[in-house]
């Protein structure tokens, strides 16, 4: 599925392994939490990268012990207006996850800046949506609002900080 990363569509190397599918021996793969151990058994780090795909009902704290075991955490967005993933991302980053954070679902370009600010590195989108909203819309979405008010989010600066600096 099309992957939005750094304001462009890029190759999506991770493959989501279906529940009834065998864990392949190589390649970047995404598995649900329940199959993580199995996947770790099959795949060594030289054969490919391992990521987990979690629903947006996951308790972020439960993932902390796994941070060193996975290169990527994918958080499901069942709908673009279900914003739970934004809080999940924020908590995961706060808890120290330094790997790749992915939002998976029908997010729209207008949410790109929010996703980034909350700590997402990339967004895995449905085909149809990516077709409707090309690169340029995502670039625009990322930069539509040049400065925002909230402090402490993953952004260059906030209005409050700029005001502080100006004095």
């Amino acid at each position, binding site marked *: 599925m099309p992957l939005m990363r750094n304001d462009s569509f890029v190759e999506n190397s991770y493959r989501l392994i279906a529940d009834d599918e065998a864990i392949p021996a190589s390649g970047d793969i995404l598995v649900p939490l329940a199959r993580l151990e199995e996947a770790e058994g099959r795949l060594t780090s030289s054969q490919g990268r391992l990521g987990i795909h979690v629903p947006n009902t996951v308790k972020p704290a439960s993932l902390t012990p796994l941070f060193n075991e996975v290169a990527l955490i994918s958080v499901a967005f069942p709908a673009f207006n279900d914003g739970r993933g934004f809080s999940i991302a924020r908590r995961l980053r706060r808890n120290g996850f330094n790997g790749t954070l992915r939002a998976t679902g029908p997010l729209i370009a207008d949410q790109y800046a929010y996703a980034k600010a909350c700590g997402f590195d990339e967004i895995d989108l449905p085909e149809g949506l990516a077709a409707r909203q090309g690169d340029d819309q995502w670039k625009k979405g990322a930069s539509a609002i040049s400065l925002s008010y*909230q402090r402490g989010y993953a952004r260059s600066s906030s209005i409050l900080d700029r005001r502080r600096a100006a004095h």
Partner: protein
Amino acid sequence: MYRYDEFDRTFVNERVAEFRSQVERRLDGSLSDDEFKPLRLMNGLYLQLHAYMLRVAIPYGTLSARQMRQLALIADKWDKGYGHFTTRQNIQFNWPKLSDVPAMLDALAEVEMHAIQTSGNCIRNVTADQFSGVAFDEVEDPRPTAELLRQWSSLHPEFTFLPRKFKIAVTGATHDRAAIKAHDIGLRVLRHPDTHEVGYQVSVGGGLGRTPLIGKTIREFLPRNDLLPYLEALMRVYNSEGRRDNKYKARVKILVHETGIEEIRKAVEDEFAALDGASVAADPNELERIAAYFAPPAYEKLPSVSLSLQQAMQNNAAFARFVETNGFKHKAPGYRAITVSLKPIGGAPGDATSDEMRALADASDQFSLGELRVTHLQNIVLPYVKDDDLFALWSFLTEHRLATANIGLITDIVACPGMDYCALATTRSIPIAQAIALKFADPDRQKIIGELGIKISGCINACGHHHIGTIGILGLEKFGEESYQITLGGDATETATIGERLGPGVTADEVPETIERLVDIYLAERNADERFIDTYRRVGLDRFKGAIHATDA
């Protein structure tokens, strides 16, 4: 009042440009209708019964004469010459075209106004006491806090796709005129009893609508500097745990009700402890910078009694009545806050024509240092009027038919637009308000009845706040006809109470007589000086039931 700096201006202009682009992308199919809907709602644009409706934000109800004039211009240029002031201190235009909305937003941005987040599942307009800064019983002006929260909540990256809408209200006085207990978060500015440090009492989970609930205290005292971190913690808990399976169970009040305040408090306090408060808190200087905009004006040194006012009141009974009914006690000697009624007898509550808006702006410039307030009871306040000027003001208002002396009385009715305008409504509400007002038009009779707040909602969403009306009226559909249920004893203040249902619904025609019977019962029962609400609390609901049973005959 707050003035935008270059950051605020850029922010609003960028948001307008973004909305313009969103409209274009809707038209060219980049955005589906489902994707566009929340985006347009987040810019205050509804699709209503007859047309679009644009809800413009009036942050904490404060606006300048210049802004009021621009609202009048917008009404004339892109709408049908009038607007409606709402129960959340905003203004609504009922007839904009989608194609015109970006231009309207530009016109708003010109005067530092916007329609950001006046709808949608995000944090809405932060409302406040309409007498902020001038009320005699105020601990601290809540508006700097409200302005800080307005900025903090605007296009928040984490809290823009909440389970449902989120409403915050702030009061700085002991008497709550902002209905904070009926809000998702209510903030009361107060002094710590021991240290005298200024901070906030925080309540959560209030709300009206389908499941009316009074907010519960989650924090007795929150130090000022912890405001943004604490609210971030609370919003994060709500964003994560709030129900998303059922639109009617998605407000934070349901989460508090179903989980229990103890557990919610624990979750919020845990989150608050875990997050890095220093990285998200506002600089103390920032709140000071904002507060400077709300510094009291340079009041003239006036005696507390104005002889010219006394004289004028003695000479003119109608004027005296206006002062007594529409005046509010001011902090500064020789001054008064005047509430201008937008409830002329037989008019649509809260509506103002563009001419009336301009008259209000002129009155404000001439008599109130260029500032106005919108109240959540759909009236307009002129906050800085000198007693010496009251007669001149009243004469001016009378000339413009804005001098109805009914504030707080039975004809000062709150009504949502109802089915005459709103796509969500199940019945009409404005005609009910009009009929009641006409029945009780006599000013002498109104004076005898005294303080009585009637609130009317045209559907279960309760935008008319009927649950917290002394008399509440809720319109429902019954067997294909409009039917009105009456509740009694609602209270929007610090003694917040949800009204109790009186009996079966009555028809539109029966409403005014039913109200009359209720008033008659009250007048028969009351002790000296008792308001309707006091008598009701003393004698109870059953005593009033006769008002409805009589119609079954």
